[in-house]
């Protein structure tokens, strides 16, 4: 018994009615990007059909409506993650840009050669490459927290690793392993070393109740498209004092207070970091996605995913002795992304056979090549779950995998 009325929920998602290769689609790739409910599509369409205009500068009703809807989206996103103020919520394109914003603005203003940034082996490229760019440009040192044999963060040397660190940049949930990292104690440890804490919450915010204040985080990055919202928008939340002290990142309209020939002054938060026309309608869609999730309740969302993940882990390991799952078995410390290898069959080939069954999973390195190298695999298959997935869909995955097994048997 799920705590969500999944059949009703499925009815809200037009894309789940899709038929592929003669079969109803089994969408198990929400960790890459989630499908969108009617209410999100309608919210965006409604704006375009009658309340669309550029925001913030128009003294006419449609512009005022668009501005109010856009800023209302911001207020919803801010409140969804427990941000103390919506002024601290900066709209960007995606989580990747959010992290780059921190690296460019805070990083370049604060980090000097030899300064240490700590990341982990389970980071997504979004939380690796910006720091490597800074390492190459500024000579900062990148230190890595390893991953244990049971796919958890290895904290054995945490204190030594944090020694001299200025920033701990860490994921709240691995998109490959599903592992949830307990942020609060990590933040406490980092703060004890005078390091700030950036949380890559891209996989966390969509699935678990998030409270940036309870985390005591300094920067939090996430994207709309993984949480029922549209493509093209994400957010950086950061503490007000940090944002106020940081230099601007992108320059242009909206982020200025005044521009003269010899220089400019910056606007108030959050607009100081939002140059040019923002993703107006996308912010409205994101707000609608949050309304949808809040109506379900994030505790129920989490509960549903924990049950489904348990069911899937059991189903896969019971049926296939040759399956190798890269991630914790304990569902209380993981989300619903299940990465696996199946015999020697390459993830691409698995995925291709699954597609014939309309089962959609991701195959590849999941933008986590450092982790893949630690795991000693070039690619895995990954099935991932969200509010609209069912046990029957897990069963469909098992059936499709059995067929792949037959097809590629040497």
């Amino acid at each position, binding site marked *: 018994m799920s705590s969500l009325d999944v059949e009703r929920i499925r009815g809200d998602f037009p894309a789940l009615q899709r038929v592929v290769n003669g079969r109803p689609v089994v969408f198990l790739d929400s960790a890459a990007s989630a499908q969108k409910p009617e209410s999100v599509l309608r919210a965006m369409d409604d704006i375009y059909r009658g309340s669309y205009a550029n925001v*913030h*500068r*128009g*003294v006419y009703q449609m*512009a*005022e409506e668009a*501005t*109010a809807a856009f*800023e*209302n989206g911001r*207020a919803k996103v801010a409140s969804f993650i427990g941000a103390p103020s*919506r002024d601290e919520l900066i709209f960007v394109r995606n989580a990747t840009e959010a992290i780059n914003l921190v690296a460019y603005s805070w990083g370049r203003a604060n980090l000097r050669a030899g300064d240490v940034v700590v990341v982990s082996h389970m980071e997504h490229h979004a939380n690796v490459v910006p720091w490597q760019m800074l390492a190459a440009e500024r000579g900062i040192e990148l230190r890595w927290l390893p991953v244990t044999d049971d796919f958890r963060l290895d904290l054995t040397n945490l204190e030594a690793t944090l020694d001299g660190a200025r920033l701990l940049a860490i994921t709240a949930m691995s998109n490959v392993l599903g592992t949830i990292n307990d942020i609060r104690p990590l933040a406490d440890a980092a703060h004890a070393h005078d390091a700030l804490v950036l949380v890559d919450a891209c996989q966390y915010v969509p699935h678990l109740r998030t409270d940036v204040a309870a985390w005591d985080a300094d920067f939090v990055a996430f994207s709309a498209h993984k949480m029922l919202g549209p493509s093209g928008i994400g957010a950086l939340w950061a503490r007000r004092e940090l944002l106020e002290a940081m230099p601007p990142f992108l320059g242009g309209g909206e982020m*200025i*207070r*005044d521009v003269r020939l010899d220089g400019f*002054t910056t*606007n*108030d938060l959050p*607009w100081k970091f939002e140059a040019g026309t923002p993703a107006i309608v996308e912010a409205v869609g994101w707000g609608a996605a949050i309304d949808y999730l809040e109506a379900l309740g994030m505790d129920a969302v989490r509960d549903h995913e924990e049950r489904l993940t348990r069911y899937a882990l059991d189903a896969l390991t019971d049926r296939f002795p040759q399956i190798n799952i890269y991630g914790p078995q304990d569902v209380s410390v993981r989300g619903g992304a299940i990465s696996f290898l199946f015999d020697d069959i390459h993830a691409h080939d698995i995925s291709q056979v699954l597609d014939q069954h309309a089962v959609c999973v991701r195959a590849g390195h999941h933008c986590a090549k450092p982790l893949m190298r630690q795991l000693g695999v070039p690619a895995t298959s990954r099935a991932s779950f969200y509010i609209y997935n069912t046990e029957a869909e897990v069963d469909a995955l098992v059936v499709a995998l059995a067929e792949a097994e037959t097809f590629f048997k040497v």
Partner: protein
Amino acid sequence: MSSNLEDLYREVILDHYRSPRNRGELEVPPATKTDGFNPLCGDEVTVYLQVDPETDTIVDIKIQGQGCSISQASTSMMSAAVKGQSVDEARKLIRAFKALMSIHEHKLEGESDGSDLASDLEGVRLGDLEALQGVVKFPVRIKCATLSWNTLAQGLDERG
């Protein structure tokens, strides 16, 4: 003319717009000078303040800059309202005026029921300034109305 528009442009507002009070400059020092910008429309205002340190009273205030009728009228009414007042009273007035302006703004975005704001308004006599309440129905214009008040607040904060 729609009643909507007359809500915004009350007679007393148009009067202050057409005959602004306290325009001019003061010598700096002894006066202080503070610039304010509205990043949305480009309006600028300069507030000159002369505070008597003995009595902590705003003995003189002068205004420069340009802006729309709402911004001009609000600036003029502000200057008339705080001239001769103590700094404490001026601060109370600023809080009260911003409360008047922002109750609606906050409600719109669903954050506040206005109860904190109501307490800022308590016991403050806004007089003519209440004519500006029509502005809250036109959210973009709120910044026009508050520009000079924010600049005044900044000027008071920056005083030695």
